[in-house]
């Protein structure tokens, strides 16, 4: 296993084209599970492929285990990759697929066989070794792809949305299994996904990417509690954090008609801001109190809790906006009724309106 370092990695597909990645710096410790997350087109897959050697960075440096690998062919980097659609060779058996890399490295047949069997039993694939991928279920194929990556004990694993082709239930199972496997092997892993749940549940640290720029690198809890900017704040967490335009002056926050006193930690702030409030930090106040007046536009029962959409402002007005709150089932107003809404100011976030960065800087 090895550490991986990226220094100022930039990638353009065309010489004068837009940067798909710009100045990415990333230090991955030996044995760490890193998740790359971001909306589609954010560059996360490209970053992964640069590490893999399937793409070359336009500039910047890639170190694996401390040595520069930027210009080494993929096959020589001792890295394994699991592809989104598994990329199993359809004409080879499960055993041959798993043992493919070993065969290329010229490992003797008997030795290869025993390694393949060991990995197969680890993954519960032992009964299927002589089948071809076409005869396997989606989950089994996924395991074969894992097996192929594991068997040669590479310096690092790269996984490109490996669960996206599975159904929801299987995805949850495999998620756990991959995590377990990673811990057991103590393998440096880079995992790409667009699914924040996967990111939050699997990664030791999560890298949030947007438009080719790293937004934040942090453990999942920190990412949630202390987002570096408005993008991260909105990207992490479900339902999404509510975001309102407002301005701060003299320790008070003005949002629309509301005028809200701010806690001390915001005392250095002033000027136009974005106010972020997670749904669980929005509540219903008694009539006449609260920060906003609105209507209950939609109520979604999710069992343990209820999501309520409040519409603030005149009906149909273009300045109207919606706040989503997560409430206990007991305190749910009826759809169409008027409501007073209160923000939990101890848990709100403020972001710079222009740069989106968190205020005050953490």
């Amino acid at each position, binding site marked *: 296993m090895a550490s991986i370092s990226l220094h100022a990695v930039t990638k353009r597909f065309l010489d004068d084209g837009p940067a798909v990645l710009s100045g990415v710096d990333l230090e991955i410790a030996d044995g760490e599970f890193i998740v790359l997350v971001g909306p589609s087109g954010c560059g996360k897959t490209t970053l992964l492929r640069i590490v893999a050697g399937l793409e070359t960075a336009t500039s910047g440096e890639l170190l694996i285990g401390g040595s520069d690998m930027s210009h080494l062919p993929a096959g020589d980097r001792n*890295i*394994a990759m699991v592809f989104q659609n598994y990329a199993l060779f359809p004409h080879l058996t499960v055993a041959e697929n798993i043992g493919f890399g070993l065969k290329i490295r010229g490992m003797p047949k008997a030795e290869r066989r025993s390694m393949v069997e060991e990995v197969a039993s680890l993954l519960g694939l032992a009964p299927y070794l002589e089948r071809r991928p076409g005869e396997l279920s989606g989950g089994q194929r996924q395991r074969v792809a894992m097996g*192929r990556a594991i068997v040669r004990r590479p310096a690092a694993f790269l996984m490109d949305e490996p669960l996206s082709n599975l159904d929801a239930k299987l995805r949850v199972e495999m998620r756990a299994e991959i995590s377990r496997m990673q811990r057991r092997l103590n393998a440096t892993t880079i995992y790409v996904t667009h699914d924040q749940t996967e990111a939050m549940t699997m990664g030791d640290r999560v890298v949030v990417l947007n438009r080719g720029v790293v937004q934040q690198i942090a453990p999942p809890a920190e990412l949630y509690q202390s987002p570096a900017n408005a993008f991260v704040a909105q990207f992490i967490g479900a339902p999404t954090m509510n975001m309102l335009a407002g301005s701060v002056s003299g320790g008070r926050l003005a949002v629309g008609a509301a005028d809200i006193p701010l806690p001390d930690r915001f005392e250095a702030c002033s000027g136009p801001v974005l106010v972020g409030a997670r749904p669980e930090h929005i509540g219903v106040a008694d009539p006449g109190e609260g920060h906003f007046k609105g209507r209950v536009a939609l109520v979604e029962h999710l069992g343990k809790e209820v999501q309520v959409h409040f519409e603030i402002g005149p009906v149909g007005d273009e300045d109207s906006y919606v706040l989503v709150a997560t409430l206990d089932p007991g305190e749910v107003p009826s759809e169409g009724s008027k409501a007073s809404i209160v923000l939990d100011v101890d848990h709100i976030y403020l972001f710079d309106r222009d740069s989106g960065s968190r205020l005050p800087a953490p």
Partner: protein
Amino acid sequence: MQTIVRLSLSQRIGRLFGRLTGRLFVWVWVFFSLAMLAWLILAAFKRNNTVFRNLWALPDSNEAHNFQDAWDLLNLTRTTLNSILTVGGGTALTMAVAAPAAYALTRMGFRGASPLTSLFALGIGVPVHAIIIPLFVGLSEVNLTNNLWGLTLAYMGVSIPFAVFLMTGFFRSLPSELEEAAVMEGAGPLRVFSVMLPLVRPGMVASSLIVAVGLWNEFLLALVLTYDESKRTIGVGLLNTFGAMRYTSNWVGLFASVVIMLTPLIILYTWMSRRIIEGLTVGATK
């Protein structure tokens, strides 16, 4: 199926009528093609002096010696062997060079792949007549005329453009992950190619069949580039038989030759027509 617009009775009758005449026309065409084949086969068993007298009569005697004549005149053992050598060899060698070329053109992402692909495609449009004179002269210079190797080489040349064109279609349809997976596992270009090749087996089969059928029926190159009886291919053999039959007016023998030549094709076709047809359409529609 539901239609919102209601049709008047006359419209509906008109449409039905149109469809019926259309289908009738299709069946007439099909019947015509089959009838012609059937007539030729039956005629091969008839007698020379009555075959054109009673066009629709069934053979009154089994003139199997027509086939013996035809067999001898076609010099069938020899010509078949030559055709198998040149067509089989030409096809195999064509695929052996066209498949890697098509692979490199579609999957190795190097600069110049696109103009090179166009260059190969250009060859599809070059008529054999535009190359045959210099080709003949050039092959003479290196003593490859009247030589089955020379003919095989020429067959490769004329087949490569279409084979490359078809195979690029097949290779292009493969997912790139497979290749990347192989690369990640440390495979070099040759290994990656050998992993990819089995994936286009249907394409290889279809392209080979199309190339082989084309060459099997070819006779201009064979006619010009070889002259010796011992080098004759089956296509030229049939043409010569046609000529000889006209001088001797042995029509039924000629029909027997045609039947002999068609039989393997009919067998191959009933067995492989789907492959041939589908192979062609992949090339044209991808």
